[in-house]
């Protein structure tokens, strides 16, 4: 039965995500574009005299896009699908179907992550477009950069998203944490990216990135399964 619930919930989340989330996604894309401009400008200032260094720096900046876009966007999706569902009490009807809280939580988390990953891909495309057309810098793609941008950095972002998703159901009033965490992560990534041209710190975080989201998600699901439905529904 859990697979039936997952399928139905996932389809609903996609519909709602695209309908309710597209305006928010546009805002995030605009924010990412704005950050791109500042990051590349800071690279031009610091390594502008060396075209090769600038190409490498601009290419590595792609790695940080996930950390800037995913926590913000997934946070928006999760507020709609976890917090609003509780506030509007539609969660009561969902729980009354027999779906377990952990299946519901995991499905919503995965769908929020998947939707934000799609937007991240678009955002990376825009980032590269601006880099080529505006800054006239052709990025260099190495395996490390591609893996960093498409796998390692998103996995780190998903760890943050899983942590937020856990806060949303574990705490009755998670809004403060929910507002601060994505802003902190995005600003930290942006600040690091703009001050460290060409840095590939994410390479060193690969092991953490490969472990953290899964461990946090597993612990989150374990603890969610032990919460009473009364607490999850905010009754």
């Amino acid at each position: 039965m859990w697979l039936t619930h997952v399928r139905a919930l996932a389809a609903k989340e996609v519909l709602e995500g695209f309908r309710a989330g597209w305006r928010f996604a546009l805002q995030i894309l605009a924010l990412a574009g704005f950050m791109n401009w500042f990051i590349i400008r800071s690279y031009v200032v610091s390594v502008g005299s060396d075209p090769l260094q600038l190409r490498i720096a601009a290419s590595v900046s792609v790695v940080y896009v996930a950390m800037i876009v995913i926590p913000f966007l997934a946070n928006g999706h999760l507020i709609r699908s976890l917090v609003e569902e509780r506030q509007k009490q539609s969660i009561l009807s969902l729980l009354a179907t027999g779906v377990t809280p952990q299946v519901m939580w995991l499905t919503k988390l995965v769908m929020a992550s998947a939707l934000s990953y799609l937007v991240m891909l678009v955002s990376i495309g825009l980032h590269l477009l601006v880099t080529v057309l505006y800054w006239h810098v052709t990025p260099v793609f190495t395996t490390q950069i591609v893996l960093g941008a498409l796998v390692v950095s998103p996995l780190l972002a998903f760890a943050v998203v899983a942590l937020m998703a856990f806060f949303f159901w574990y705490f009755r009033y998670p809004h403060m944490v929910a507002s601060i965490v994505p802003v902190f992560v995005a600003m930290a990534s942006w600040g690091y990216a703009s001050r460290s041209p060409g840095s590939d710190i994410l390479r060193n975080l690969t092991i953490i990135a490969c472990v953290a989201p899964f461990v946090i998600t597993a612990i989150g699901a374990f603890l969610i399964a032990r919460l009473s439905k009364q607490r999850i529904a905010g009754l």
Partner: protein
Amino acid sequence: MADPLVSFEGVSKRFGSIQALDGLTFEVGQGELFGFVGPNGCGKTTTTRLMLDLYRRDAGEIRIFGCDPAVDFARVGPQLGVTFDQHALYESLSAEEHLVFWGRMFGVNGRELKERCRFLLEAVGLATRMKSPARTFSKGMRQRLAFARSLINRPRLAIMDEPFDGIDVETKRDLVDLLHTVVREEGMTTFLTSHNLVDIERLCRRVAIVKRGRVIACDTTENLRTKTRKRQVLVVTLGEGADGDLVQAAVPEGSYDPETRCLRVEYVPDSGPPDAVVRRLMERNLPVSSFREETLSLEDIYLSLTGGGKEICG
């Protein structure tokens, strides 16, 4: 009752210092339309939430389809249809998408789901608005959709918390018709809570009246009338100029409303002729315009039992 679909046996639930349920006991039989009424704060919502495993009881035993919902809700939940007093719709989804989503949650798919959606949307009068998002719906339309949603999986048991609260007469009539159709054709059992006793009386054959977390009466409406002993009401309309004090003095067991000039006297049918009351009024030269006999409504019984009105149990 042999093999009840729902049974509560001595169920208690406390929230801090508030005893929400205090040894609640009742049973609902297969195919019944069962009414659950009581004043605000008497434990109606707590009872429905215990049935849905949203609360954990402190004591007692609950059985739905023979299972304890707190232990085996995965078996109970898929056979339920639920309507809460808050409609809780997804604003960006259309009426059809709502029903498809809820149908899929219960494992209803393909042609069966399509046909069920069409039937329910037509029955609740939303067929022409099936593609419109819920955010464009009026309160009545939202209630219609929430009602249809609760029936999408052909539930064995529908738990409806104030389903007719705040909706217009036409919507209510359509939903009542649909409920009767589903109960009759699909053998669905319905557990209905409502403040509107007229609705409950019209829909339900059996009723539980709850006060301070306890069932104080649970029977058919007909038997409840019998148990309250005084089953009939004599309504005497007096002419202009009738003195309220004189009326009350002539018939101390009645209650007189000077605004409507109506005197209501409850009585046991076989205990004496009601025209004795009229005679007493006429002996004191009080102008009697008309009089009629009425059967006690569920509201009269409810007010009597919950202490919300005049005591008629004697």
